[in-house]
């Protein structure tokens, strides 16, 4: 090859640049003083551009983005503190007492331990029912998930709040319960 593709691009570029060489020299030697009318018009255009930027930032797309962000935060809040949102869980029954041993038969329900009373909720997590145990956190006042409880296989409920085991037997799907002392 006599030349490379890169040189071909360079040739186009140099011809494009040399077209305006005279204008650039002319501009350097005789700088033009723009009229006040031109300056005014350009100032208006620049201001309009700045406003346009903010209009775009505050446009529909941005508003939708903000709305989705709020929605995402609300959803996160719901997952962390399900007791605060009635739509996320259905109250099924209350375990009136604590017990020495317990067995949970129903994997579609969860126990909520609150102020010495274990409450049963049916909860939908990510479109599948799962047993989850919540306790009332005295420090924050919010319900939080008890990390020590594996309700899936009916093991004892560990009461995070009082650091004692709250055990209950729950035999019916819809709320009747057997408490074993």
């Amino acid at each position, binding site marked *: 090859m006599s*030349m490379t593709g890169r040189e071909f691009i360079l040739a186009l570029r140099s*011809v*494009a640049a040399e077209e305006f060489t005279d204008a650039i020299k002319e501009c350097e030697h005789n700088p033009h003083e723009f009229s006040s009318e031109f300056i005014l018009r350009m100032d208006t255009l620049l201001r309009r551009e700045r406003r346009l930027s903010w209009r775009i930032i505050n446009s529909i797309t*941005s508003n939708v983005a903000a709305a*989705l962000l709020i929605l995402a935060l609300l959803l996160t809040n719901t997952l962390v503190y399900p007791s605060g949102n009635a739509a996320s869980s259905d109250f099924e029954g209350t375990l009136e007492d604590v017990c020495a041993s317990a067995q949970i038969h129903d994997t579609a329900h969860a126990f909520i331990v609150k102020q010495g009373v274990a409450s049963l909720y049916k909860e939908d997590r990510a479109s599948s029912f799962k047993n989850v145990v919540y306790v009332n956190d005295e420090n924050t006042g919010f319900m939080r998930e008890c990390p020590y409880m594996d309700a899936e296989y009916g093991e004892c409920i560990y009461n995070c709040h009082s650091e004692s085991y709250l055990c209950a037997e729950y035999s019916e799907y819809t709320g009747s319960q057997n408490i074993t002392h």
Partner: protein
Amino acid sequence: MISVFLTLIDNKNHEERLFEKLYLSYRSVMYSVAFAILQDESDAEDAVHDTFLSIAARQMPLLSRIEDEADRQSYILKATRNTALNMLRKGVRQLPADDIYEREQFDASKSPDDGFINYICMKHDYKQVVEAIRRLDKKYSDVLYYHFVLGFTAMEVAKIQDKNVNTIKKQLVRGKKLLLEELGSLNNVYDR
């Protein structure tokens, strides 16, 4: 989602800063280009203003893609020159947007980009190519520049020049053909 939002804000801020930078850097030389064509101070200022209006309205996303400062300058000055020429045409006589060449039908498939560049590179040297490009009508060398150097599509060039995309496609094909003609090899290429 947050990253998309922040990117949007960042892009708009970048374009706003770039627009101001272009105005401060190039307004004088833009004026010189426009004045060389229009020979009237007021008309030349109008041309500069109109060019910035056009850039603000349609061309900032394209301009912000150009990283090389020399290419950015060429782009801006070509835009100014085209605006001034359009003003001159409107003032003197209403020329048809396209000339006789653009109304002809060309087969773009006969000169695909890679084959075109390879052929030229194989048969000609740098000086010959520069000379051939100089001899081209500006509208063809402009389209070749936008397409091959800046990497713009026919649609994007049409947006810059406020022309129909088919006109630009034809100009691109015609520009390649004329360049080959200037290089004295048109027949060899199209007889193959």
